[in-house]
């Protein structure tokens, strides 16, 4: 990317490097949010609906993991994916999938914890009616997931927001390689250290713009939920 140009100029001129950075950021964080949902939502629902020894402890751990420091996740994934590590043969270090893996690990607790909260609240509400209508276990779960869909989508957006904003893990496992693993956050870190502050700030605005958009979507989703399902 040319130096000394503001990010807005690059945006307007359709600079391919900038678009590839933004595109990669979205692809990685969105994928991570989706995978985290696939893992975290059933997990959260399971914890919400079953009684087992140590359930309170599991809930406390799930909530605590929401605050997992990204750099630690990055380090752990880095050591695992390194050629001299246990998963080295996958050859994933310094590639986008490694970034997706790290962010998925980061985001799954958030989605699981939010899902658990949503499902548990809904479950307490619906419990009697489920019994009254003789609904089987599997149907109960799918009903809860469907009726709670607006809150669950909000959880997914929250996960996406967290992933899109972080840099600590993906810079370690991705290596910030130009054209391959450079995302908005890692590019901002790089340009700042190079003294290209105007470019870094510009990228920052774009990133903030995306995060605000996601928040607006989440808010819109809540409103739609209220209006539609009451």
């Amino acid at each position, binding site marked *: 990317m040319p130096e000394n140009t503001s990010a807005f100029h690059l945006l307007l001129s359709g600079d391919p490097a900038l678009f590839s950075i933004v595109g990669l950021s979205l*692809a990685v964080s969105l994928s991570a949010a989706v995978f985290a949902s696939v*893992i975290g939502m059933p997990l959260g629902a399971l914890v919400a609906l079953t009684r087992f020894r140590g359930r309170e402890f599991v809930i406390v751990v799930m909530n605590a993991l929401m605050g997992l420091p990204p750099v630690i996740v990055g380090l752990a994934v880095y050591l695992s994916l390194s050629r001299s590590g246990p998963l080295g043969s996958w050859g994933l270090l*310094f590639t986008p999938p490694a970034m997706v893996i790290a962010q998925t690990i980061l985001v799954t607790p958030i989605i699981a914890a939010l899902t658990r909260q949503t499902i548990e609240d809904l479950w307490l509400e619906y419990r009697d009616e489920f019994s009254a209508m003789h609904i089987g276990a599997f149907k109960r779960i799918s009903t809860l997931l469907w009726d709670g869909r607006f809150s669950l989508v909000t959880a997914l957006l929250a996960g996406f927001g967290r992933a899109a904003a972080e840099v600590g893990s993906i810079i370690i496992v991705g290596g910030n390689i130009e054209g391959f693993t450079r995302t908005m956050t890692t590019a901002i870190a790089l340009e700042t250290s190079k003294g290209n502050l105007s470019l870094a700030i510009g990228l920052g605005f774009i990133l903030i713009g995306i995060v605000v958009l996601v928040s607006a979507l989440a808010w819109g989703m809540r409103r739609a939920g209220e209006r539609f399902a009451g």
Partner: protein
Amino acid sequence: MTRLLQTFRLAVLLALIIGAISNGAAADRSIVVASTTSTQDSGFFDYILPIVKGRLGITVKVVAQGTGQALDTARRGDADVVFVHAKTAELQFIAEGESLKRYPVMYNDFVLIGSRADPAGVKGSKDIREALASIKNQRALFISRGDRSGTHMAELALWRDSGVDIEQAKGTWYESIGQGMGAALNVASASEAYVLSDRATWVHFKSKGDLEILVEGDKRLFNQYGIMLVNPQKHPTVKTALAQEFIDYLISPVGQQDIAHYMVDGQQLFYPDANDPNA
């Protein structure tokens, strides 16, 4: 439960597919080069990699870290080539059997940067040792990279040459920040301190503020770059053929000329010296 496992496997499969797709085009002719942040910050890779792609058809992926970290990455087998500027550490690397041969490539020089105010009065000095001794005596604010990088190790060597035991002498005037060259320059600029930088990164640096070059040209400030192929016997996944192609290009007359043509603001930043037996 099986549904969960199935979904999980699907997820991993999808991740690998994404990986394959994004790597697909490059996977065939690409190598990973572990290098330093100063080299990256100087813009050298932005300049040379497209040329390499054009001439050799090889996609070079550079992971930029501190020298120590870069060598560690290679020791773990996560890179095919190491390209740093710390001869002692490179020779150690070879002694460990991590590489079979070191090729000198080019050099650039370090410069002593400081504020116009120059509290230690070092401007124009031709002897870096005197300058550093003066800074220490005046307890003038000095920023050190402190990150085991080639620059950091050169800085430590220069303190030794100046007769300063930096471990003893350091105090609040000596700030070790543990980051790359760009970051160090940022801090120096913000606090009007002295800092040792490679010329390339300095020329490239955008927020110079009140800083300028105070000491340059002393032979002791020369910064030699060496490139090494990671030993494929120790790390079978190294892409030996492609990596060797890359190295051969850099030390060839064509590559050396390309290196010499890298200019920023009309200044040549790197001086090719692959043929120098002492480099």
